[in-house]
């Protein structure tokens, strides 16, 4: 049935009616088919008639649809565009629309020439003796590259990056594992208070019971707190008495009287 269609055109030899569906599948896309049609005009690509090309393409698409061939969208998009192009090409020359059509035809012809050139390039490449097909390189190359690794690849930025990496890693490590503080514990203070309190006949400030090996203010405050806690503990047991004259005043401490009266009263006026 498509034979009549073909007759109207310049008889593309590649499009035998029987093999129409196969041939369409064989084409890479609309441009591929157009190029094939153009070449079957048996004139050089520079002088093909775009109009007759358009008509051939539309005829192929039409016959394909008549035999319910599934056509991908791009075939139909090209068909729609070519229909538009045909309408422009049929207008009398000189009108704006006709010029538009000519410009579009030029573009199409240019694309066909580009594709044709690339086809030719592929053929040119394919005709060359190819490595591994027509010519062969050495099958068992020898590795004479005794790698001389005596030289070092060193640069300043690598050195600095390494230094920063080391510092950062060490820094992050320490955040999670703080070095242990050597602080005066309550146990230490209890021991020292018990040792010293007997030797003091009268009231003495808490500070006098601090050890004299303290490193800095932090250690001093910690020792003071420990000693106060130890004092409270001992006062509760009745061994000593505590006294503070005013708010934030010095805390005084002495051994408890053997009678041991109001023990805890004074500690918190």
């Amino acid at each position: 049935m498509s034979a009549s269609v073909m007759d109207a055109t310049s008889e593309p030899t590649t499009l035998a009616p029987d093999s129409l569906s196969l041939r369409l599948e064989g084409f890479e896309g609309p441009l591929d088919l157009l190029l094939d049609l153009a070449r079957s005009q048996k004139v050089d690509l520079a002088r093909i008639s775009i109009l007759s090309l358009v008509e051939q393409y539309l005829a192929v698409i039409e016959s394909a649809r008549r035999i319910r061939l599934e056509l991908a969208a791009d075939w139909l998009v090209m068909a729609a565009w070519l229909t538009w192009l045909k309408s422009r090409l049929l207008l009398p020359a000189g009108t704006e629309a006709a010029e538009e059509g000519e410009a579009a035809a030029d573009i199409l012809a240019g694309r066909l020439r580009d594709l044709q050139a690339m086809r030719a390039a592929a053929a040119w490449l394919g005709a060359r003796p190819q490595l591994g097909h027509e010519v062969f390189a050495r099958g068992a190359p020898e590795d004479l590259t005794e790698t001389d690794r005596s030289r070092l690849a060193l640069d300043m930025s690598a050195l600095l990056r390494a230094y920063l990496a080391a510092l950062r890693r060490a820094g992050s490590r320490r955040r999670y594992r703080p070095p242990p503080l050597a602080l005066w514990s309550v146990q230490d203070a209890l021991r020292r208070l018990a040792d010293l309190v007997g030797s003091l006949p009268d009231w003495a400030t808490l500070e006098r019971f601090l050890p004299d090996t303290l490193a800095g203010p932090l250690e001093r405050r910690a020792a003071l707190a420990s000693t106060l806690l130890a004092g409270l503990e001992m006062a509760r047991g009745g061994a000593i008495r505590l006294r503070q004259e005013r708010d934030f005043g010095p805390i005084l401490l002495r051994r408890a009287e053997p009678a041991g009266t109001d023990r805890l009263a004074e500690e918190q006026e």
Partner: protein
Amino acid sequence: MSETEPAPVAMPAEPDEACLRIAEALVFASASPVSARALSQVLPEAVDADAVLAALRARYAGRGVELAEVAGGVQFRTAADLAPALRKVVEVPRRLPRVAMETLAIIAYHQPVTRPEVEEIRGASLSQQTLDALLEAGLIAPRGRRESPGRPTLWGTTPAFLAQFGLSELRELPRREDLLVEPPSPVTEPAPGATEGEGG
């Protein structure tokens, strides 16, 4: 080395046998093409590497193995006419399908080029299979990205492409104009009045 007959030193046209031996061994041993610069590094100073290679090429002309200029250097290759005999014994990889060859040609001529541009030229979409085949053969490689929306990857050919097709450099590809059989005259009279059928 010292036992080889000394060649005339003054004549630049005939490099001495010792140099020829070194060049022969180096090129023979290499898996990839050897540049004249690489050769000059192992030759005695003041010896013209190009002259040595020319002498080596002359020596191997017509032999079963020949010196070919490829990918910016030289490489020994079997003579093309021996392919039928060798194919009986040496394993030959599959040829690239037509689609892959076309895609390769487009990339070679338009590089650096994006995949959509390749598809535009071919007028058909490019299958993953084709791209994979070219990549796997090491014939194409990414060449950065185009600074345009989406930053699409740019593709180009590799030195392996040159080696595969026996090209010394990309400029050895035929000019695009020469590929078209017909003279590059301006296009198509769209023939506004053309009746059905006849093209021209």
